[in-house]
């Protein structure tokens, strides 16, 4: 493995980790709302959350490109703040976050649903406000599912391609992830490069998914 290759691996790993942390607050809030609350239009929200999971990733990437393009409203504001997204590492972060969010939300939602609401209610009678109940009762009891969901999201982020190449481009040293590098190396005929990165990709994905399964496995009730 060359220094360049290690740079790609390192970049992919930290952007994936960062995206997982980034989606955590919003993802958990959404998962909790879906688990505990009901409101008109809830099924619409559920559908939108699941969309990136089933839509072609390039299509999702195209939507992101349209929303964040420089001449656009949001892109313009970001440009003035010197915070361009398209064709920068921030676009990679964006693509990974959007594509892996559904996995986190789905796992966390199931985990929250499995927490006995009675426990939350009793905690409130003991004087705990909503935030305290959430952080001291709900989250700890749902922690296995949440961690499993985070690992799943991380694994998904590691392997993201379609949306990333659309909105971040394949710029070596700046936005190139492992999957983008494999793609480029195959295109230019540098197979040995590609196979090495493929190997790393498989190992990373394996570890992440294995860890995820460990946490998501249902505890056998005695």
């Amino acid at each position, binding site marked *: 493995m060359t220094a360049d290759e290690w740079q790609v691996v390192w970049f992919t790993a930290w952007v994936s980790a960062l995206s997982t942390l980034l989606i955590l607050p919003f993802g958990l809030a959404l998962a909790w709302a879906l688990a505990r609350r009901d409101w008109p239009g809830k099924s619409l929200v559920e559908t939108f959350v699941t969309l990136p999971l089933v839509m072609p990733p390039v299509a999702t990437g195209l939507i992101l490109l349209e929303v964040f393009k*420089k*001449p656009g409203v949001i892109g313009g504001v970001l440009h003035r703040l010197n915070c361009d997204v398209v064709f920068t590492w921030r676009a990679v972060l964006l693509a990974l976050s959007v594509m892996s969010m559904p996995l986190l939300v789905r796992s966390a939602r199931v985990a929250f649903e499995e927490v006995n609401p009675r426990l939350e209610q009793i905690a409130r009678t003991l004087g705990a406000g909503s935030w305290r109940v959430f952080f001291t009762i709900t989250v700890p009891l749902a922690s296995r599912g949440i961690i499993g969901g985070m690992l799943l999201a991380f694994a998904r982020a590691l392997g993201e391609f379609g949306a990333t190449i659309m909105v971040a481009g394949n710029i070596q040293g700046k936005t190139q992830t492992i999957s983008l590098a494999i793609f480029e190396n*195959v*295109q*230019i005929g540098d197979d040995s490069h590609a196979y090495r990165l493929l190997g790393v990709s498989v190992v990373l994905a394996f570890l992440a998914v294995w860890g995820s399964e460990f946490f998501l496995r249902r505890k056998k009730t005695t």
Partner: protein
Amino acid sequence: MKSNRLTLFAMAFSLAIFTLPLRAAEVMVSAAASLTDSLKAIAANYEKSSGDTITFNFGASSTLARQIEAGAPADIFFSADEAQMNALATNGLIDPATRKGVLGNSLVVVVPGDSKLQITSASDLTNASVKQIAFADPKTVPAGVYAKAWLTKLQLWPLIEPKVVPTENVRAALAAVASGNVDAGVVYKTDAAISKKVKIAYEVPHADGPDITYPAALVKNSPQPEAAKKFLDYLPSKEAGQVFTQYGFLLRE
């Protein structure tokens, strides 16, 4: 009774569908992305007179070459540079007797239609106001390779390389400029003419730019060698030449 008639009809129908290709020849052409519009127009004319069907696979010449190396079905390869054609020739994948240089082109720097950037020379690209420049991937795609050659000749490449946003093919570079997501891009003059959302900021003078040649050849093991040869020979014809010139290409002999 009814089901018997239905089965008979279905069989006759499928027979008709499957034997269709045997009647008229279908020629598969893998061609550089920059040839998209011109070739489609030429093929439309050709199909009327010959009765054959021309199917296109447009993309970066480098990608297409890889596909042919991997055994993709193609009758003709029309590349944007000699390098990709040479790669196939070395591996004995084309018929060298049929190889000919068909077209020439020139490079231009384009900017988004509403851009206020002024590019009067190659060194203007090194200005701070130009943050990101779209190139077809300079490592392998002909348009990018040509652009890199041009800037290397002027010893400006090291300053410009950090700003490069490499794209899959030259049309993707054009699209990036058209969308406004980059400040400028280097594409063929023929591409700039296609899009209304970009304007040419600078034309690379012939002296500075590299020699651009678009060669075409028959792919060995083509499934339709006669029909393919027919179309290949049509490309340097007067009729085809008129269309190419219309789109801004230079003709070679």
